[in-house]
């Protein structure tokens, strides 16, 4: 399957955007709401950037509780196969436009857990990632820098990974299915059937 390289495409038609799109892109870049999906130890680095030392809110970036409200999905660390399922569902529940920032080595190559049976070594095979931050773990400065980069990308219209996901959905879906085929027997053997007690009558 052929992967379209959006970065090249964008650069070629950079200035063809309408004024309205430019304006919205500006506003979007100034009001990025993030959903930090704390998959691993990288989440430790988020409190410093949100509190008084680095104060990311001055860029309009605030944490949000649900994917419906968020613009950025932050994957803060390694993803196991079961976690990946949640990540994908969360990602798909975010309204467009949406961006993904992957944290640390684990999300790129599995990091120190690369040979574990249930670690996803490259998150980018399953969901499109706009920016990855190297390091184990990355420093807050790096995160802050990434955020500013993302802001600029949004402003210039470069951050289009979500388009990539839409256009190459078949590719991503195939990868995801291959991955989840491994988890199926685990889920079935675990008897997680929820037994619901029908409670009759009034509460009183």
């Amino acid at each position, binding site marked *: 399957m052929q992967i379209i390289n959006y970065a090249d495409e964008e650069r070629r038609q950079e200035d063809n955007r309408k004024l309205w799109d430019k304006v919205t892109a500006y506003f979007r870049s100034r009001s990025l709401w993030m959903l930090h999906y704390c998959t691993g130890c990288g989440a430790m680095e988020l409190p410093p950037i949100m509190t008084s030392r680095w104060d990311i809110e001055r860029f309009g970036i605030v944490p949000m509780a649900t994917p*419906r409200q968020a613009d950025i999905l932050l994957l803060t660390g390694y993803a196991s196969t079961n976690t990946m399922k949640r990540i994908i*569902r969360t990602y798909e529940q975010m309204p467009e436009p949406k961006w993904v920032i992957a944290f640390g080595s684990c999300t790129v190559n599995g990091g120190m857990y690369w040979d574990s049976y249930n670690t996803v070594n490259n998150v980018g095979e399953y969901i499109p990632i706009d920016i990855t931050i190297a390091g184990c773990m990355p420093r807050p400065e790096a995160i802050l820098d990434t955020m500013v980069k993302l802001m600029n990308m949004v402003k210039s219209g470069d951050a289009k990974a979500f388009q990539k996901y839409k256009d190459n959905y078949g590719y991503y879906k195939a990868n995801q299915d291959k991955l989840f085929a491994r988890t199926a027997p685990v889920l079935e053997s675990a008897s997680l059937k*929820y037994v619901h007690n029908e409670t009759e009558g009034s509460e009183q």
Partner: protein
Amino acid sequence: MNIMLMLLVVPLITAFLTMAILKHQKTVWTIFLAVSGYLSYALFTMYGKWDLSWSIELGFKMFGKNVVLSLINSPLGWFFAFFASLTTLLIAMFSIAYNDEKHDSKTAPIWLLLIFSNIGIFFAKDWLMFFIMWEAMSTTAYFIIAHGKEISAKAAKFYLSISLIGTSTLLLGIILVSRLSQTFDIGVSIDSLVKLFSTNYSAALLYIGLFITTFLIKSAIFPFYMWPSKAYAESPDDFTPFLSTVMSKYGVYGLILFILPILAKSDLPMFGKISQPAYMLAVLGAITSVLATILAIFQTDMKKLFAYSSVANVGYIVMGLATMSVVGIQGALFHSVNHMIFKTAIFLSLAAVIYRTGERDMHKLGGLVYKMPLTFLVYLLAIISAAGIPPLSGFTSKWLIVQALMAQKMLFVVVAMIFASTGAFMYLLRCLASVFLGQLPDKYKDIKEAPLLMAIPMTILMLLTLAIGVIPGIITKPIDAVLTGMGYNVEPSSWTTVHTALAKSDLNLTYLFYVFMVACVISLIMYLISGKQEKIDQIDNYTAGENPLEWDTTPDRFNFAYGFYQPFKQMFNPMLDLISFERWMSSFGRIVERASSALSLLYTRSEGAILMLYIGIAILIIGGMM
């Protein structure tokens, strides 16, 4: 033939007629509709003819005179009778569709008898007529509530015992009062009671206490607020609106007819701006609405929930009456009509839901808005009205009552009123959220919208509540006639504005509606100019990344509906135990049952027979000695 007599005769004759052809249900209910239509029309033509009357002399002597039963067309009676029959007309249309093979309650003939007594109560000129019709109403209602179902019969027993207590006190009161005035005429008895208040205060208080007890029982005011939750819930679904809206007004009617004039004319000890008995009444109304609201919040059965809601609403009406002021009575009368309209709409839409799903527990339903959008809309507008939110009708009357209470400085009563009406918001939304919104359970995937014959009356009710809300004059104009008939001096009310006793506080409701509409348009523009939306599946929810369906969660279990106000309920648990009138009643019932068993055991044993005989002789001898 005298039109007053026709009002009584037509339902009576058709009741017997329909009894004969009870097998053809559709015909029976169509006749029922025709009769209610006739009654509504006849009552409509009777407006303004306050000299209509009818009377009959019976060959039965009391107070040395032959008993006379008479009817008279009074503005107050007309007001209640007309709106009651209008409500009945709409319910009747609904009933034609509702009573199919599956939901056949076969209650039409008894219901016609009930309508017969309904007219009698509202137009009675003397106490005997009033009592006769009252008792007829109580017993016929029992048979409709029980309607040949075992579980309903149990609930109806509860209704029956309390209602019979009511008729007993009414009979006692009537006989006491008519002995006082040596006639059964209601007007004369008011005067004689006023006189009694000046001579023997406590006796007079006892006399009106007996009447008030009856009226409170019928309107389910504290301490008798428990029976509706049983009776309303188990009665036929198409009868519940009648029970809740029309029959709860008998007590209100009785209070306005008899108690208010006495309290207004008598010279009574005052508490603040109003007399002590009236204040007592207001407090009872306040307690009722607060308690009923709290209880309604915790129900899971939707009919029980709205049963308590009805109780709370009648509580408002009683509070309004107890102010003894023009605005308060106006508000109470207005709210009576409003309650008839919006509560009928609510119960009918719930009946439509039950008709389609056969389920009464709210937590087993959900998401019906997709399948029954019209029913949802009717329900929505009705609850907006019930919550007293402008621009629908419920607001105007609540506003009037609140204003009257504030003008009379009944501070804690008005706080109770606000508590109840905010609490109303809680339970109304609970039903909305649990029944119509949320996830649609799989088994209801292919239910349909309510049938056309059900939809028509519901739509009419919806439009009525909107129309009255925007143009309150529809109701305030007849209320003027009622108030004038009661001897109050009232200025003619305007079509759009409602007046109050407080300074600079009048309110133009039509204007309010315009303003709200403009605000809606602004809001709609905001909505339209912003980005596109995409419709997604109902179950596609944020659940921390989990897919609920994978965990064997079905849509109805996914709904948050069962313990809707659980933390709030925990606050009230100790109090709920304390106020469980139901428990008192059932423990009292158990005592009677035990006594009954013990006494009948006395009769089954043979040994004591002669001993008892001697005890009897002893009673006679001792009695003779004393």
